[in-house]
């Protein structure tokens, strides 16, 4: 078995057919994944790409749509998760969608203006931003005077990423909640353009720091698909090891932070301590506490130092087991999690929840198994699923995933094949590729297009936090302020990945 990526199929679709095809695909059990636009070299006419996943074990499928002068129809009424992608495409590529249900800017937050859509060919635009007060909705009824608005952020308490949260509430009850994201929009997709494919890896590792390995993997998978390069099996096994170590430290951090929100102090300290141990293990293995600098197109850069990993795992696992058992038996902690932040299965599916969040809402999906890549189909992979749909289920999924990750790392150490670390990966000029990887937060996709000189012409990043931030507010409306921090922590969101 080699690390050759699955062959992705593509089909041309006329704008007029889009809605009917989307309805048919959804009816057949497919799920839309994301959409984006790009400008083929030398063209001012955008080309749309829709990526869908037909079902378990099948390869993702791409629709290519050249819309020409006519506005393409919005597919959001049938597939709501596409709404944010369409709005982003309007902001960044200047493509308007007919009958888009929420025709407001998304990436350009209220008060932000760009001289021209930044991803259109041509000079870079100047972006400006003037803060706009949050609107107070028109309310009727006797209690309207009691409704308060709490704008929180973008600079929040503690060491947190910047984002603004608006709560409309009466007393403890949240009537409506609206996050204002994209304060951290860095124009990362544009930063790839013109780079050599190899250097793009350094950038992909810096899209979402705590997802460095998985982002680099998804990016490299896309290049490997474009160049039809076969990654040596030793490298695919080592990539599994790195990706699971990344999941390990992220999930340990998650548990510590979740305990912080339920004010379980010793639990918080222990979770963060275990995360620190895991990061020190990362450092010994790769030279980087975030496991940066090992994944490269075609394989891995150098042999990681695995001498003490097996011993270190025993230590972490021993401490983890007791920690997890105690968390599962602490009623003050569980009371705050059970029935908090309920996300039902249908909503999770329609709005595009991914990773542990969807798996805690009963959706049995994991790209490591369902769109296998690398060495996962040779290793004992289990997928944790719960149908509790609440913060507790999301914690349970993560705890179980930690044990699965440790098992996977052990399996890699036991069966690591000999061989070379790296194959030649040179994507052809004008080529393109789609790659994906299961980050600790869900599926990340990279779609990569190369120009006629073999440099990067367009890189689209579909990050899991973009998907989960879209879903998250549905679990906040109608809940109460006391549960908010716990609910947000239970989603395990990043802002950098979402805003890019």
């Amino acid at each position, binding site marked *: 078995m080699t690390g050759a990526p699955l062959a992705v199929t593509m089909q041309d679709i006329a704008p007029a057919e889009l809605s009917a095809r989307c309805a048919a695909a959804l009816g057949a059990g497919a799920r839309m994944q994301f959409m984006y636009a790009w400008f083929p070299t030398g063209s001012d006419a955008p080309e749309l790409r829709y990526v869908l996943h037909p079902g378990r074990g099948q390869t993702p499928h791409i629709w290519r749509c050249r819309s020409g002068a006519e506005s393409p129809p919005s597919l959001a009424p049938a597939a709501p998760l596409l709404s944010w992608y369409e709005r982003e495409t309007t902001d960044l590529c200047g493509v308007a969608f007919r009958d888009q249900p929420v025709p407001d800017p998304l990436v350009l937050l209220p008060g932000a203006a760009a001289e021209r859509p930044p991803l259109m060919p041509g000079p870079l635009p100047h972006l400006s931003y003037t803060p706009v007060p949050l609107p107070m909705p028109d309310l009727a009824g006797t209690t309207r005077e009691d409704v308060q608005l709490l704008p929180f952020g973008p600079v929040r308490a503690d060491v947190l990423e910047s984002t603004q949260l608006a709560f409309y509430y009466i007393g403890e009850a949240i009537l409506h909640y609206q996050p204002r994201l994209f304060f951290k929009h860095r124009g990362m997709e544009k930063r790839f353009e013109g780079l050599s494919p190899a250097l793009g890896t350094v*950038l992909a590792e810096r899209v979402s720091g705590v997802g460095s390995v998985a982002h680099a993997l998804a990016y490299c998978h896309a290049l490997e698909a474009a160049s039809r390069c076969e990654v040596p099996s030793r490298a695919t096994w080592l990539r599994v090891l790195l990706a699971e170590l990344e999941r390990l430290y992220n999930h340990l951090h998650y548990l510590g932070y979740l305990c912080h929100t339920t004010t379980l102090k010793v639990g918080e300290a*222990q979770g963060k301590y275990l995360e620190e141990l895991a990061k020190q293990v990362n450092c010994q293995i790769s030279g980087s506490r975030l496991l940066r600098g090992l994944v490269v197109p075609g394989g891995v850069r150098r042999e990681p130092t695995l001498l003490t990993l097996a011993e270190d795992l025993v230590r972490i696992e021993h401490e983890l087991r007791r920690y997890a058992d105690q968390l599962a038996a602490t009623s003050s902690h569980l009371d705050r999690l059970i029935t908090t932040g309920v996300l039902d299965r249908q909503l999770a599916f329609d709005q595009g929840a991914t990773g542990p969040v969807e798996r805690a809402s009963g959706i049995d999906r994991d790209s490591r198994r369902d769109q296998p890549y690398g060495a996962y189909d040779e290793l004992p992979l289990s997928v944790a699923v719960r149908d509790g749909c609440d913060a507790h289920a999301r914690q349970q999924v993560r705890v179980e995933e930690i044990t699965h990750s440790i098992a996977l790392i052990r399996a890699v150490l036991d069966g690591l094949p000999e061989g070379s670390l790296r194959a030649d990966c040179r994507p052809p000029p004008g080529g393109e590729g789609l790659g994906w990887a299961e980050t600790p937060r869900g599926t990340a996709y990279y779609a990569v297009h190369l120009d006629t000189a073999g440099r990067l012409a367009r890189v689209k990043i579909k990050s899991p936090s973009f998907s989960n931030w879209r879903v998250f507010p549905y679990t906040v409306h109608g809940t109460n302020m006391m549960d908010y921090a716990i609910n947000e922590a239970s989603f395990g969101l990043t802002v950098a990945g979402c805003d890019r």
Partner: protein
Amino acid sequence: MAMKVIPLWTLYGLARGKATTRWCGEDAEPGQAGYLGMPRFDQAKCQQGCRECVDTCLPGAITFCPDASKQRLTVDYGRCVVCQLCVEACPTGALTSSTDWAFGSRRREDLVWTRAAASTDGMTLKREIRRVFGRSLHIRHVDAGSCNGCESELQALNNPYYNLHRFGVFFTPSPRFADLLLVTGPVTYAMRGPLLEAYEAMPDPRFVMAAGTCAVSGGTNGGGYACDNGLEELLPVDVFLPGCPPNPPAIIHALLMLLQRSPQRVQGGQIGPADEHPEDDYA
């Protein structure tokens, strides 16, 4: 069962014992075994006519020196993201991996490699900081567009291993109580305003730390249509701390340096032995 659990956590915590490293800015083991820090540059080994490292450096930390008679290359550690690509590209071993992480400096110039270590002028300390703050410090962190790698390491400062509190250093929610504005990220167009507002809300005397290569120079993510190139043109920076991300001991060292409790280690882009200022008491 449920009632017994909280005392169990207490016992559990006590039984775990002390997890904190003995490291306190000097000597001892800071738990960074294997860490790959800023590559070292040895000009004597640098080969004429070669441009391998320059071509492979995404953030432009290695550039050709405009005045080639003095030195061929300019190596600016304020732009380095420790990707180690230059080390692999260098055919002559002029660039080698190192474990150097204590790159906090008061002057931006100290992060640029020079043949002779710079004078210590820039290391003259702000005398008043010790008088005003004593040994303590309150920090307001502002994320101005990081990749969250820096936040991951900043959050680690309060884990039991580093236990930042033991140094009398605390994160505070309000800029009104803050002595130090600790900024991460290259500064996005939308965070520029909130960042400046946070600074304005701080009482004097106030200090600014650019933490992470993005905040120091923009790094790989700065520039483009949405970002500035770090803090330098926006705010008066008192401590520059490059690193991608800087590891927790590097952050602690830079904080203690600001408080005059630890000496600056980097000069002319090179980590030297701890520079002792006999008149200073770093204890």
